């Protein structure tokens, strides 16, 4: 910052030196007033919000400025939420990015995203406000009639104190939670921590006593406060520790400035705005008037980009110290300077309207050596005592074509225009000298038009030799040349207007070689147009600027080739002049400004009026680089400029254009959104319109290089041009998630810069089409189906279980019956049988009745056996039945002495049936 201050001082001091010498570029002020659309030239305040917009409180409204347009907020009779009066004072951005400002002794609010004004919280609504002030980044001071309130950045009151003065006082944040109140010769310090008000003793100082005096600035590092006295000027006062001479005046009287506001940069340097203008104050130095027109009640505000905004009763002025720093000499004529070379500290040039001249680098002056007007001249080349003038000879402004004198040179000794007679021997019919080049070995090369080729004046022998395309054999095809460059080996590279080829003089071999561009650079796949310029840098790179093709870098040692085209950032394919600086960077004068190829990064930088360049339309041969002091010279009609190339690159102003979506209408109604908010719209809210604000204080003309793309979901963006009204409308948008993107084409680099805010919104899907609804339906359906299936199988299982239980119960019952029959009935029958047998054995004469008992018992046992067999569940199968029948029948038949043949099949089908069926079948077979 201190460098900037020194610089600003130097600028102002230099501006006061005599005209004719090299001057330093002035600070450029950009005015904003009623003429620019400001509602009033009375501007009370200036503030930049977090998005970069500048807000001005004016007598006729609160104004937002974005670099190209103004948005004015005023009182409206029909809107009760509008500010109470048109006048707006200080404006402060709160933590939630809402703005608070004072208007007609009231605090009022504004939502900067949707432009809605609205009343403040209830606490503030009835308060009569004298001053609203941002004390530090977390503290707001609100001055009312008798009480000063301290609020946080949410506008919540954290403290209040009865003001030591009734009105007309100033207050400022000191440090350590202390605030200073001052009026006339009274100063009070209030501690927010201790809630104590303490008076400072400043009575000893004259002439401040009983005079109007405001504390304007605090230097907390050096513990100094600055008082600004409208008449007496600026005073500083050390406050910790206080010494006898703690109050010191600055070397300026009040009448010099009529100071109203100060902006301190660093240490003891102050910028003071006053009725006189903007004044720079430094201790022990004279005050410097930086800017004359400010008007009363001036204020200074510094924004994030180091723009300084001076407000007052004459509107607003803006300046930026990071501007292009150059030196210049104003010439008496609007001359287009064309540079040639430097000899003996003199940079030689020629002007169509001004004649032959040079810039003396020692004396820092331009010296005209001859005002002879020569038509179509593109330079002046000094060789020994002659300055060869390249162009059609044409002596004097009033000379007729009959006075045309060809092949002109200025003799530095006789100080007269002459014709170098030795050239006539080689160029009988020539009309103009196209080139004179003195090589490092002392050889001088001449070329003139009319096809007589090149003449070499050998330094060692001073003999001349002519090379023409009519020689046998012809050394080259060119009829003449007009530009030359030399490498470290002494090889000279010639070119001629509008041809693409290079003619190379091989110094060692002493012969010419022609390089065909299309074949030499064939690997680029390009056709090469006219060669506008060619140079060789210190790294032995041959740089060739081809119109309509691009810039070729060809290393003469490595033979490595690189072509720079528009896609590489080259802003255009017209090259008026080209030089290489000491760092190897290539500077080109083009119709689009001054272009630099930074070879370390292979990036192009373009310097235009945006960077402070005084003009952008360069002429042929209008650049010259002086390696002795790293200065680059360029000329414009009427001016010679000099810049330091490294300084130029260091101060290159980066494009800081910001683009914001400023307003949004949904179905033709304003939609109030917050920045970066994810907006969710209903399905019917699908007609949208957006307006944009571009924020660029260095480019005040509406930029048409903006594009936008509405991207749905994750689709690739399709970019479309944004119209000049900065409006986009979308109708009947389908449901989905959208991203609105905006970008700007940086013409200088041919690259796009994305907008600051990517705007996301979502149009909701109709409820019956939503994924959650479909999912819930699907889940419910699946659950119901599962429930039904489960119930079906569960019931079937239950039925089977019941059936099985029944069957088991039946089987158990049958088993129990069979067991009982066996154990009880069978045992009983057996006993009957054996008792009967016993009776029979003991009584040989057996009654028939006993025999019948035996037979019946026996038969009962057999039948019971059959029943038991049939009851057995395991026997209720076809194979069991077959085998049982076979065995019973077999026994019966065998006992009868009959041969029984029965072969049951090997595999009997597994068929099950009930015990009744089993028994009946057996009985049926048995009966048969």
């Amino acid at each position, binding site marked *: 910052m201190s460098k900037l201050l020194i610089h600003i001082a130097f600028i102002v001091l230099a501006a006061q030196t005599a005209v004719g010498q090299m001057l330093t570029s002035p600070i450029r002020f950009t005015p904003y007033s009623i003429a620019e659309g400001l509602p009033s030239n009375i501007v009370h305040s200036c503030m930049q919000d977090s998005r970069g917009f500048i807000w001005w409180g004016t007598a006729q409204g609160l104004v937002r400025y974005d670099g190209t347009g103004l948005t004015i907020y005023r009182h409206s009779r029909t809107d009760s939420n509008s500010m109470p009066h048109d006048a707006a004072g200080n404006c402060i951005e709160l933590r939630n990015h809402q703005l608070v400002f004072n208007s007609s002794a009231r605090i009022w609010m504004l939502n900067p995203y949707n432009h809605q004004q609205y009343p403040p919280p209830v606490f503030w609504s009835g308060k009569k406000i004298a001053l609203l002030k941002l004390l530090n980044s977390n503290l707001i001071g609100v001055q009312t009639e008798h009480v000063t309130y301290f609020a946080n950045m949410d506008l919540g009151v954290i403290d209040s104190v009865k003001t030591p003065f009734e009105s007309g006082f100033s207050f400022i944040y000191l440090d350590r939670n202390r605030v200073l109140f001052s009026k006339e010769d009274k100063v009070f310090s209030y501690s927010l921590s201790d809630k104590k008000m303490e008076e400072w003793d400043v009575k000893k100082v004259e002439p401040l006593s009983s005079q109007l005096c405001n504390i304007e600035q605090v230097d907390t590092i050096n513990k100094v406060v600055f008082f600004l006295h409208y008449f007496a000027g600026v005073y500083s006062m050390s406050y910790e520790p206080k010494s006898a001479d703690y109050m010191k005046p600055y070397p300026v009287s009040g009448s010099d400035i009529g100071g109203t506001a100060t902006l301190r940069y660093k240490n003891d340097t102050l910028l003071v705005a006053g009725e006189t203008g903007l004044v720079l104050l430094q201790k022990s130095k004279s005050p410097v008037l930086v800017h004359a027109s400010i008007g009363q009640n001036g204020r200074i505000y510094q924004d994030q980009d180091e723009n300084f905004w001076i407000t007052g009763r004459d509107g607003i002025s803006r300046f930026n110290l990071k501007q292009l720093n150059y030196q210049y000499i104003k010439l008496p004529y609007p001359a287009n300077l064309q540079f040639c070379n430097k000899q003996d500290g003199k940079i030689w040039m020629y002007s169509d309207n001004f004649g032959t001249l040079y810039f003396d680098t020692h004396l820092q002056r331009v010296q005209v050596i001859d005002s002879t007007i020569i038509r179509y001249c593109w330079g002046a080349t000094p060789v020994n005592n002659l300055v060869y003038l390249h162009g059609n000879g044409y002596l004097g402004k009033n000379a007729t074509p009959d006075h045309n004198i060809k092949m002109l040179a200025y003799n530095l000794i006789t100080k007269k225009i002459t014709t170098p007679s030795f050239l006539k021997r080689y160029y009988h019919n020539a009309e103009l000298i196209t080139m004179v080049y003195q090589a490092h070995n002392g050889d001088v090369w001449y070329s003139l038009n009319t096809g007589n080729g090149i003449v070499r004046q050998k330094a060692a022998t001073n003999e001349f030799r002519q090379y023409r395309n009519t020689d046998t054999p012809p050394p080259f095809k060119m009829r003449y040349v007009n530009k030359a460059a030399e490498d470290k080996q002494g090889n000279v590279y010639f070119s001629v207007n509008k041809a693409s080829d290079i003619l190379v003089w091989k110094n060692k071999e002493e012969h010419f070689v022609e390089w065909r561009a299309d074949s030499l650079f064939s690997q680029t796949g390009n056709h090469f147009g006219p060669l506008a310029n060619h140079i060789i840098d210190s790294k032995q790179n041959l740089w060739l600027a081809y119109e309509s093709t691009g810039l070729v870098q060809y290393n003469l040692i490595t033979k490595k080739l690189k072509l720079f085209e528009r896609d590489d950032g080259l802003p255009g394919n017209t090259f008026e002049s080209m030089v290489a600086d000491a760092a190897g960077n290539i500077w080109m004068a083009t119709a689009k400004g001054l272009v630099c190829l930074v070879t370390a990064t292979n990036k192009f930088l373009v310097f235009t009026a945006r960077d402070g360049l005084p003009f952008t339309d360069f002429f042929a041969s209008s650049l010259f680089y002086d390696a002795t002091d790293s200065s680059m010279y360029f000329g414009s009609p009427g001016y010679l400029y000099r810049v330091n190339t490294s300084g130029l690159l260091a101060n290159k102003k980066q494009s800081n254009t910001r683009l914001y979506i400023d307003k949004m209408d949904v179905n033709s109604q304003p939609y109030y959104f917050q920045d970066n908010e994810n907006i969710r719209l209903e399905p019917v809210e699908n007609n949208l319109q957006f307006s944009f604000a571009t924020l660029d204080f260095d480019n005040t003309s509406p930029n048409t290089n903006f594009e936008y793309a509405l991207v749905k979901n994750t689709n690739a963006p399709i970019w479309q041009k944004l119209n000049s009204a900065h409006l986009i409308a979308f109708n009947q948008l389908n449901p989905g998630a959208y991203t609105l993107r905006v970008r700007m084409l940086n013409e200088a680099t041919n690259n796009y810069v994305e907008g600051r805010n990517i705007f996301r919104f979502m149009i909701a899907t109709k409820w019956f089409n939503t994924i959650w609804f479909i999912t819930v339906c699907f889940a419910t359906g699946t659950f119901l189906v599962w429930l039904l299936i489960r119930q079906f199988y569960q019931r079937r299982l239950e039925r089977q279980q019941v059936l099985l239980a029944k069957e088991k119960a039946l089987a158990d019952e049958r088993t129990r019956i069979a067991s009982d029959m066996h154990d009880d009935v069978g045992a009983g029958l057996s006993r009957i049988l054996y008792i009967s047998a016993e009776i029979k054995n003991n009584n040989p004469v057996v009654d028939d009745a006993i025999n019948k008992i035996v037979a019946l018992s026996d038969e009962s046992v057999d039948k*019971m056996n059959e029943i038991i067999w049939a009851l057995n569940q395991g026997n209720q199968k076809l194979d069991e039945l077959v085998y049982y029948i*076979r065995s019973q029948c077999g026994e019966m038949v065998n006992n009868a002495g009959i041969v*029984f043949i029965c072969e049951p099949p090997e595999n009997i089908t597994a068929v099950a049936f009930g015990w009744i069926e089993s028994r009946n079948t057996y009985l049926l077979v048995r009966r048969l």
Partner: protein
Amino acid sequence: MIHISIVEDLAEIRTSLENLVKAQPDMLLLSSSATAEDAMPALLELQPDVVIMDINLPGINGIECIRKIKDDCPGTQFMIFTIYENDEKVFDALAAGASGYLLKKTPTDKMLEAIKELHTGGSPMSSQIARKVIGHFSEKKSASVALLTNKENEILSLLSKGFLYKEIAAKLSITVGTVTQHIHNIYEKLHVSNKTEAINKFNKH
């Protein structure tokens, strides 16, 4: 002389059997008991050739009695005395160590014949029991038990299909005595198999 013991809870039947055995000159009744508890000490001590054992005894039943003393009476043949041959318990008794069964309704001459036949190595087997024996051995094929010979399998298969001993003998060209001998062997193997299975189950637990 065939030494016989009787275990039958019904006094009438037991007495009839006793009288029947006593009346035979080639048979000697060693003991006669109404319960297994009474019979077991006597059987272990007397080691009869044939024991006629009722199944449904009060207290320890006939099957359990055979299982307990079979191994200690290696020369004794246990003959189940049952009302009908297809009783489930008959197979269990055969598996426990009985070598034959005798139906209670069997006429006395046939009964004496069956006792003698059992003593000489023969055994009766109904078709239903034959199927159970086949099922028992087919389940234990993988076990390391003595499996049946082909001839035994053949006989069992025919028996299971209701063929009489006589028919089997004719079909296989062997004597009825050989058939009964094979069946006796099958009972022995059934007993061993059943015992091995019981031991394996015990070891697993």
